[in-house]
């Protein structure tokens, strides 16, 4: 099994300078995520069998990863939220709000005359701020996360529509399009951003005190509080982090579409939660896996890609998708059970 997993890893792009870090990351994740890796390998086999070289082609792999990038980055943030047994339905709307805010005429004019970086910063700032509002309401207002973020989902989307007047705002700042939309070392910048956020998220969750406290709060908030952890402040920070990730997703999507629009990220919240949950993070909190989330996102985007390559009827795709989700989870469960038995 481990050999097939390694085969898969070779196809997956990893920046050469991160080789050893990646290896480290994978070792930790490999055992727990065997089922997901297997599912991904099976998908890869399916893709190669049905679409041959067109699937295994490096361009195509890059297409898959590029597609996964935006959802992926937002999912990293959501992994933290779900690890503390929360839920964030507002990420798609926050992404839209961030994208729209960063691409207003005046914003673009300012960015044009100074640096494109301000567009990215605006998107991230707006995202983090919206996330912070969620966090304050949830942590200090004690409104359950489902309701708070549902409300934010409506409000942020509405605000995005008002700001953009429901027009798609076209980005004319060349610096932005060239840098964020371009390549670095032959790899699309948005893919690099995804890798960066994923690695950063992994380190944050698994190698820092912040991550430790996140797990503790998710596992037993009362125990965390009695151990002197500032549960409220931490919770607030995690929703702000999720907002920040949505903001990062926003400028990635801006680069991908060359636009900011109030319709960006529609339905993203469910895709994100699905990827995180497929990845093994428990909705009941206490367990979260960034590596699993990345695999979950890749599984979904590979699925979309295989469907596109194979010219399946649209409705059949939906049915197949449903079946594949359940099968993937059943495989994962079986393997997990077998592992803990040995």
């Amino acid at each position, binding site marked *: 099994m481990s050999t097939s997993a390694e085969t898969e890893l070779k196809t997956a792009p990893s920046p050469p300078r991160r080789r050893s870090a990646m290896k480290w990351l994978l070792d930790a994740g490999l055992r727990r995520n065997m089922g997901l890796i297997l599912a991904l390998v099976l998908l890869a086999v399916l893709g190669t069998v049905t679409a041959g070289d067109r699937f295994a082609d490096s361009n195509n792999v890059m297409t898959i990863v590029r597609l996964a990038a935006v959802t992926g980055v937002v999912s990293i943030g959501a992994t933290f939220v779900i690890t503390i047994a929360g839920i964030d339905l507002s990420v798609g709307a926050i992404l839209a709000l961030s994208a729209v805010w960063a691409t207003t005429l005046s914003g673009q004019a300012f960015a044009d005359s100074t640096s494109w970086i301000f567009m990215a910063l605006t998107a991230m700032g707006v995202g983090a701020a919206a996330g912070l509002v969620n966090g304050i309401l949830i942590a200090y207002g004690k409104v359950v996360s489902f309701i708070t973020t549902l409300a934010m989902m409506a409000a942020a989307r509405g605000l995005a529509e008002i700001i953009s007047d429901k027009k798609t705002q076209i980005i004319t700042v060349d610096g932005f399009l060239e840098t964020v939309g371009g390549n670095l070392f032959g790899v699309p910048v948005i893919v690099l951003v995804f890798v960066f956020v994923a690695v950063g998220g992994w*380190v944050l969750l698994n*190698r*820092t*005190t*912040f*991550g*430790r*406290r996140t*797990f*503790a709060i998710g*596992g*037993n908030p*009362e*125990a*965390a*509080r*009695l*151990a*002197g*952890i*500032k549960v409220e402040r931490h919770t607030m920070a995690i929703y702000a982090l999720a907002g920040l990730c949505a903001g990062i997703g926003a400028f990635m999507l801006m680069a991908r579409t060359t636009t900011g629009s109030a319709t960006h990220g529609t339905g993203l919240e469910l895709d994100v939660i699905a990827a995180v949950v497929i990845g093994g993070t428990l909705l009941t909190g*206490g*367990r979260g896996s960034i590596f699993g989330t990345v695999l979950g996102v890749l599984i979904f985007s590979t699925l979309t890609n295989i469907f596109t390559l194979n010219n399946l009827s649209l409705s059949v795709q939906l049915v197949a998708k449903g079946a594949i989700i359940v099968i993937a989870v059943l495989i994962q469960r079986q393997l997990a059970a077998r592992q*803990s*038995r040995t």
Partner: protein
Amino acid sequence: MSDDEATGAAPSRAHLLEMRGIEKRFPGIIALQDVSFEVSAGEVHCLLGQNGAGKSTLIKVLAGAHRPNEGQILLDGKEVGFSSPDDAIKAGIGTMYQELDLVETLTVAENIFLGHEKSRGGFSSRRAEQLEAARLLAGLGHPEISPDMEVGSLSAAGQQIVSMARALSREVRLIIMDEPSAVLDSEEVRNLFDTVRRLTAGGVAVIYISHRLEEIRVIGDRITVLKDGRAVASNLPVSETPNVELIKLMTGRSITNVFPPVAAVAPDAAEVLSVTDLVVAPGHEPISFSVRAGEVLGLAGLVGSGRSEILGAIYGTTKPVSGAVGIDGRKLRPGSTVSAVNAGMGLCPEERKSQALLLDDTLVANFTLASIGRYATAGFTSGKREYQASMEQVRKLELRPADPAREARTLSGGNQQKVVLGRWLSHGCRVLLLDEPSRGVDVGARSEIYNLIAGLSRAGIAIVVVSSELEEVLGLCHEVLVVSENRIVHRAPAGELSEHQILDLVMEGTTL
């Protein structure tokens, strides 16, 4: 109740129940190995063993909650296969589980009749249930527990009573009690024993699990001892087996002195914890006391007398109405556990599962929860240092199994308690608040925990112990505060008090 029927059904001599060659494996561990066990009608059969010996596992197999990998269960000499708790219940086996098996969001009456609701055509008859529940509770000496109270609002002791009422609400031939006395005070335990005697008189068999040997003496008929998943002694008659032998069987060594000698507090010891005019909740009297470095202060009293609430107000889990708590003269922010922990205070709460443990996490994570910053440089944790520190705790606390990478969930109750203690040991405290530190802890581990506490006291840590076992309060503490109905009714050095005196004080308090 159907005591008469039960008597009729079970011939008094023959075994009511027999378990043969039971084996139960969990991932990575064999919890039970070739265990045989028998109970006769009308007897109280005690099951003894250290934490993690497999007592709860054995009775869960019997109750149909676990399926054994090997072995058979015979009821009235006929083999039965319990594939679910339902089967066992139907066969007349009632169980009070160690981890309270109640639904906190349901009412007392609803819990009592869960699974055998009184109903007409599927519609529940709530009045009938409430009447019957009230009758059962009154029979147990607790008419004050109202059938339509939510169980979550009851104290652990109250919940234990409900659990008892529930076991009695069915027609039972065998009742299993897994450490029922752990959350009860002496008064309640006496009450419980009355009930047990009534049951056995009616021919019902009782399996009784407890870590308190003195209870076994009072109520038990025969004893079976488990050690590391095996039955090391079966059917010992209670009257002919001295404690020393039991302890030897359980632990493999002899423990003669449970309580270590109490070292005197240095006369010049500084006052570490000071509580001034603390009003815990609206309507309560202000409380003041102080604890010096190396001093162990005990809070004695009945269950529900408000000792946990006092600890909570000191630690900041609840915000007191008024008053101040200080450590080394510095005042703490009221209602802030963060402020308390930062000032060097630690709390081992009474509900270790819901309040203290990260059940799904490793022991390492549990140990370092409060002190994670210490193993980190610039926020990045060092797994190696954490592991080493945890390993040290594991050794110091003699945890079984001695594996810091294990999940807390898979540990037995006593070992879990040690983990919570270990958290504050590795954190290093000026003041340690211990709420029922020996609840559910076996004899061996208990003496280890007492030794630990004594050691901490010698190291100059101020300690406050809440305990419902008077023996423990007297044997462990320098000073004792007697609490009754949220008031401190008496303060005296432990040496000047006896169990009787305390009980009298407590009773006086309640009648006042």
